[in-house]
């Protein structure tokens, strides 16, 4: 699935790295605890989260995640956006809640990788 399709499906704005939205991504993960992302995520390219601070971008960078989908209408500040721009990580901002966002993406064919930890 292209990042562009995720944005359209979830009515998301793309405040940073718009030039990368035609990249393909094949799996996603969702968490509000970055500790869990660091401990359990393997090769997911999209991070769905309601947490909105610079450590989300740093965690994504460490895990080679290429797109962060902020749910619940969270608005990233300039520190977050500058860091994401520097790292080339796309940020999407969707008004959907986490459960709905995950459900819509899963239904559209974006997998979550392995089922259990």
């Amino acid at each position: 699935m292209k990042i562009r399709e995720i944005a359209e499906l979830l009515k998301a704005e793309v405040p940073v790295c718009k030039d990368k939205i035609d990249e393909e991504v094949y799996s996603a993960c969702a968490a509000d605890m970055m500790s869990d992302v660091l401990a359990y995520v393997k090769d997911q390219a999209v991070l769905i989260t309601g947490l909105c601070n610079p450590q989300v971008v740093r965690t994504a960078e460490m895990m080679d995640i290429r797109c962060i989908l902020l749910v619940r209408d969270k608005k990233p500040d300039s520190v977050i956006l500058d860091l994401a721009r520097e790292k080339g990580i796309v940020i999407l901002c969707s008004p959907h809640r986490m459960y709905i966002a995950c459900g819509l993406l899963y239904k559209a064919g974006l997998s979550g990788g392995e089922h259990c930890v």
Partner: protein
Amino acid sequence: MSQDCIRLEFKVDSENFASAGSASESVKTQLKLLGIGSSDVRRVAIAMYEGEINMVIHADGGKATVEIYHDRVEIILADRGPGIADIALAMKEGYSTAPEDIRALGFGAGMGLPNMKKNSDEMRIESKLGIGTTIYMTVRLT
């Protein structure tokens, strides 16, 4: 075996939580530039980032030293924080002494030390209450 290495040193600053992880980012960039495989780079990055976050949360920062050899990366994280009272307990998944405000920032789930061990091939913790903690990690390059 050649013992030539690239040595990097960082001061881990705890004053601004937003900047936590910048040392790990620098190391990751350096390893990528050296052409080291992405899974090895990620293991080093995760191990060091978890350590860096711990230093910021628990110890008012500290010093990180990274030595890159041809077959391994050695990471030394030294702080002058309160020390770890019970290392075996601290290594247990889910055990955390992080305050609630840190959990609100997405950390403090008690996964840091176990995840550092998981992503390194060797890990040793030296800690003295009231003096500080030093963690030595080795990640072998595949």
